[in-house]
């Protein structure tokens, strides 16, 4: 397979096309612009379309229409644009439509600036719009992983009939790394017999999202909750390093996660008993490795993220008071350096050993 | 000559058909349907010529016309 040097934004775009995505709807916003530009150039070559919408509000509903008609489709956006999409994402959840939404997050709140940030974590993982729902959230830490996760995002969306968010940041979007595109097999996925494309002699398809009958509404919520529970049980994904004997476990994702990986390796070389859990699915959140670490040697957790502290809440929920959870945060668009993480790991590893 | 068949369970007694009929063939009936509306009826069948103006105005698709 040919290795190419491409930007993260371009890699996810090409990976989406190779996963069978034929339609892209979007509105330009930095630092995600390479996605819409790549799609504009490349989709016509595979018989698809990029439609430049008048707003992100419109983009997400174009996505709803195309997904309602059964097509693999996606959008890419950033920060403020992702906020504008939340109403539509709530509708997508209710309609149970498979779509893929890439958020190349930037610093917020408000316009913020274009620097990388993980400040959209709550919006990614808490549904984001109105009502009671979740999205799949996949968080790559590099360009190859971003490409690999795109195919998975489409497959998971189709398999469970729900939106999948690919959670990026400006660094991952703008960075070039070598990437190899891998084919995925979609034969196991259920056919979209529910799609509205015209009856074609069969029964009528209604793709709608309201349930006026309270009994049916409750039943529908219970069914969706059961599906979410099943996903929590079977679809957690993470990378782990040296958890077996780790006193201190670093939990970090995305760009921060790749720096944390280097820091944990460096600290290990210095003889510190530290391990890493790098969540790849932010929803479902990987609670399993945290539980495992607690039954092994973990005496404390260190969360490193590029925001005021959002994922730390999920870690605390998973740890549930059984060990201290510390936060190392980089704010204002800054990224952690390996040195600063190693220094903090050394300090915290000392602390948890003393207090344990 | 013609006649109309009114689905009295669909009719809501809005009288748009009565108003549309140039020949005064339709009236509200004295009875109520299951929804509590007084449906329209072909009170004067001899006046109906099957012109369909009533059906064209019916918002509930309650009228079938024969001629």
């Amino acid at each position, binding site marked *: 397979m040919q290795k190419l040097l491409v930007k993260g934004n371009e890699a996810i775009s090409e990976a989406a096309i190779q996963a069978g995505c034929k339609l892209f709807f979007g509105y330009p916003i930095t630092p995600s612009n390479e996605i819409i530009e790549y799609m504009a150039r490349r989709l016509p070559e595979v018989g698809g379309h990029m*439609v430049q919408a008048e707003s992100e509000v*419109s983009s997400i509903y174009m996505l*709803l*229409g195309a997904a*309602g008609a059964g097509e693999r489709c996606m959008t890419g956006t950033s920060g403020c644009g992702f906020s504008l999409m939340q109403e539509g994402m709530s509708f997508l959840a209710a309609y149970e439509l498979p779509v893929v939404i890439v958020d190349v997050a930037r610093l917020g709140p408000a316009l913020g600036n274009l620097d990388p940030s993980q400040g959209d974590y709550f919006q990614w993982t808490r549904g984001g719009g109105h009502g009671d729902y979740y999205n799949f959230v996949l968080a790559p830490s590099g360009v190859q992983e971003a490409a690999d996760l795109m195919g998975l995002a489409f497959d998971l969306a189709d398999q469970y009939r729900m939106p999948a968010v690919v959670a990026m940041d400006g660094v991952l979007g703008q960075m070039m790394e070598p990437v190899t595109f891998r084919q995925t097999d979609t034969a196991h996925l259920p056919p979209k017999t529910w799609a509205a494309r015209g009856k074609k002699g069969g029964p009528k398809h209604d793709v709608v999202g309201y349930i006026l009958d309270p009994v049916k509404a409750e039943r529908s919520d219970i069914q969706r909750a059961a599906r979410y529970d099943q996903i929590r049980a079977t679809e957690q994904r993470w990378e782990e390093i040296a958890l077996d004997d780790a006193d201190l476990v670093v939990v970090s994702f995305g760009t921060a996660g790749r720096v944390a990986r280097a820091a944990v390796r460096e600290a290990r070389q210095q003889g510190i008993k530290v391990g890493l859990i790098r969540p790849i699915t932010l929803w479902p959140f990987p609670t399993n490795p945290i539980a495992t670490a607690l039954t092994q040697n973990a005496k404390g957790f260190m969360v490193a993220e590029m925001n005021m502290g959002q994922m730390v809440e999920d870690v605390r929920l998973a740890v549930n008071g059984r060990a201290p959870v510390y936060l190392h945060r980089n704010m204002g668009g800054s990224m952690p350096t390996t040195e600063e993480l190693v220094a903090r790991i050394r300090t915290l590893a000392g602390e948890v050993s003393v207090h344990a | 000559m013609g006649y109309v068949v009114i689905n009295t369970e669909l009719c809501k007694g809005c009288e*748009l058909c009565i108003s549309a009929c140039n020949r005064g063939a339709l009236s509200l009936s004295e009875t109520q349907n299951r929804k509590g509306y007084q449906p329209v009826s072909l009170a004067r*069948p001899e006046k109906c010529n099957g012109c369909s*103006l009533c059906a*064209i105005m019916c918002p509930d698709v309650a009228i079938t*016309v024969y001629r």
Partner: protein
Amino acid sequence: MPEAAEKCVFKPTEGLTEKPLHYCPGCSHGIIHRLIAEVLEEMGQLDNTVGVGPVGCAAFCEQYFNVDWVAAAHGRAPAVATGVRRAVPDAVVFTYQGDGDLAAIGIAEAMHAAIRGEKITTIFVNNAIYGMTGGQMAPTTLIGMKTTTSPYGRKAEETGYPVDIPKLFSEIPGAAYVASGSTDSPKAVLQTKKYIRRAFETQLAGHGYSLVSVLSNCPTNWGLTPVKAMEWIRENLVPNYTMGELKVPTAAKGGEQA
């Protein structure tokens, strides 16, 4: 009943389901639903159509149309229809939208669908008031008209003027067919049906976006009987909005299409 073997000259269309309509007595929605359904049936497109619904009194109208359906959020129907259209290029795709849905919250989506020349048809139902939420002011509410949010009558100095959607849209190059009809009389209803047919024909011919505005009533929130409400359309709405065919595709000019 006469015994002669008469022929059925008007029967319920196959384009509607058998579900009884939930609208208030005398509401124009039923008439407009039926016209769309009849046209699609007559054109042989019932198996090839995807409708996109609004929010408002017609939010649940997919129950009535015997075609595939994708419901939209308030105002977003043209965006949803764009997605459907791009996914199923050979289908007939239409949106059904009220005056709040299209002319207020969704005017950006509607205008940009027209600007893109999106090959969809919009049926715009204008009764100058918000029906479902209980009679509030719409962008198309007439000057002086009382609603629950303009209790002293709409004042231009506070809320501007009613927007003439068909006139506005007829200025957009991507809008290939724009017409404005009414439901106040059998003649107006038959005329509106022709407009709807031409709009769908415009779409199928690939000319671009098409819009049919239909003046309709709201007996409940206007506080009038259905018959009086139809008169009110005739006397008040018709004079205030541009009527007739405002724009036809260049290819169709000079010759009757329908």
